[in-house]
């Protein structure tokens, strides 16, 4: 008997701790909902940013918004189903891991609009699906410029999570920025082959700092915690990614290359409300669209004159005068 009670107790505890619930919102015309990836809605990263974008849209356009959290990859499909049954005008998937699931759902339910962050289907985008991608190379370019201008040892580093085209956009954008600021700067680039192993990130950063780099930029998720920690311990500089990471080490994170998922989500909501939902296409958000940028706290550690130069660069990128490289080939082209 006692055994059974314990079992039930453990199950209840487990359910409470793992399951979190979405909230139902009042009806008012258009409904938009999103499915988070495994980080949850308060992940201080994309999911949170996405939800902020939706909430802004809720206020602005008097629509109703909702979210469902995923605790594991297997939750994506059922969450999509739940939101489909709830009668939403648009369902978002936050994060590239949902790429296959959402495409499948879009094909199954041609009447339902879907959108996804960080995934491009190219030619094969179903007519009721929008892929939203970011020009990560552009903010990387700007922080690269800052690094190139601020390095005293003429050596900077880049730590990537895993080597695939998305992360390479960060790498080559950064390199282009550094080289533009100062062609003599040597750039160490290394991949951790993980987005979670903070200890490995710290080891790589330690090595770069030992080899005389004084600024290291990371595009590596949790691995970056180790990079920033190494900067803190050795009193060197680090550059954050995705969101403003200055709070992790206020005196050592000089700037961050930010991805404004909130702006992108808001933007698509605005299009949907206007009846101009860009189904069947891939939209790409860069500096021009306000989809990316550098951290607002950059003024704390970056000299004002460098930030002014960054503003000028930004204007040039927006006007199309500068096209930031994002692949090994375009970078090689750029170096000429």
């Amino acid at each position: 008997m006692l055994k059974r009670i314990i079992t039930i107790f453990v199950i209840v505890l487990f359910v409470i701790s793992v399951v979190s619930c979405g909230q139902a919102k009042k009806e008012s015309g258009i409904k938009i909902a999103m499915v988070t990836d495994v980080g949850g809605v308060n992940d201080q990263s994309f999911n949170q940013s996405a939800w902020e974008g939706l909430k802004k849209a809720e206020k602005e356009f008097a629509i109703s918004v909702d979210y469902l959290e995923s605790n594991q990859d297997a939750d994506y499909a059922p969450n999509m189903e739940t939101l489909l049954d709830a009668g939403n005008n648009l369902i978002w998937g936050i994060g590239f891991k949902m790429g296959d699931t959402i495409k499948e759902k879009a094909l199954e339910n041609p009447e339902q609009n879907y959108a996804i962050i960080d995934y491009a289907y190219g030619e094969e985008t179903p007519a009721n699906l929008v892929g939203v991608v970011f020009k990560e190379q552009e903010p990387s370019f700007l922080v690269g410029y800052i690094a190139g201008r601020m390095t005293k040892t003429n050596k900077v580093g880049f730590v990537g999570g895993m080597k695939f085209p998305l992360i390479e956009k960060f790498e080559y954008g950064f390199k282009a920025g550094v080289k533009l600021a100062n062609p003599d700067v040597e750039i160490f680039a290394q991949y951790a082959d993980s987005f979670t192993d903070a200890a490995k990130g710290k080891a790589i950063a330690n090595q770069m700092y030992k080899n005389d780099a004084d600024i290291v930029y990371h595009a590596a998720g949790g691995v970056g915690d180790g990079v920033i920690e190494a900067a803190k311990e050795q009193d060197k500089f680090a550059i954050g990614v995705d969101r403003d990471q200055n709070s992790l080490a206020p005196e050592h994170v000089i700037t961050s290359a930010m991805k404004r998922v909130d702006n992108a989500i808001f933007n698509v909501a605005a299009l949907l409300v206007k009846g101009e939902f860009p189904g069947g296409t891939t939209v790409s958000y860069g500096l021009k669209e306000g989809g990316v940028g550098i951290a607002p706290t950059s003024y704390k550690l970056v000299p004002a004159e460098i930030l002014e130069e960054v503003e000028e660069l930004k204007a040039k990128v927006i006007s199309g005068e500068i096209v930031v490289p994002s692949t090994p080939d375009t970078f090689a082209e750029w170096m000429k």
Partner: protein
Amino acid sequence: MIDTILSNIALIIGTTLMYSTPLIYTSLGGVLSENSGVINIGLEGMMIIGAFAGAAIGYFVGDPWIAFIGAGIVGGLFGLLHAFACVTFGANQVVSGIAINFLGAGIALFLSRMLFEGATMTKSIALDNKMPRPLNGVFHDGSFLNIIFNNQYATVYLAFIMVFLIWFFMYKTKYGLRLRSVGEHPTAADTLGINVIKIRYLAVIMSGVFSGFGGAAMSLAIVSNFRPTLVSGHGFIALAAMIFGKWKPQGALLACLLFGGAQGLAVFLGQFDFEISSQLISMLPYVITIVVLIGFVGKSAAPSADGIPYEREQKN
């Protein structure tokens, strides 16, 4: 030239120490539990909750030692839960371990959201409130020893002390002998008046305490905050190290150092532009560990009663 080689070797050793430390604590936890006859694959979950407790207590209290011990206590509570299921109720130890892994991750996330305004990441602890770094500034800047020991936290040295203490306890004290006898042949031990239940309880609780230390060695030393992906599999690596180390503290230590060293080597090699892909280099720690263990260590055998719940025969 020689200088460069030496400083690179020092860096690899430094990485080895940093990387192995959390694994050493956690695998010691595994050693204790399994030698008493209780399989503990919940090390990962205990490590996660320990990492969270360390980061959270460290942030709110500001004292690393209180945080470290607190992490041990919280880990110990999870150990108690595991012992409760496995020892008192004779539940399947693997299943209970899996449940602990889910529970550790889930509760850490739940508490993090409660305590940190809904965030899944705890706030960063200031450098001064992290573990002390006892050998900073002791050696000359840029010297071989300085590269190894600069910025190594107290947790690193403590891990080695713990290995010695556990070894001494297990092989040089009568309590250690009791522990091992309970894991080898609980019925015989019981016949001789050893309280099997009590010893297993203590061992499994201590295994949680050490896993908690392992987690805190990450969140209070390697980094200064907890995030749900911080531990990501280190608990399982520690479990494997304990098995490779033949269920002995000194063996587990060597296996952890081997893994950490291979990781250091991978980081070192990763800086060069080889034609082979970085993914292959990143596989090194796993490949080296497996090859060395298959090639040199030989067959390892678990304590005979490992995994078998002990139930006393009914008195008539």
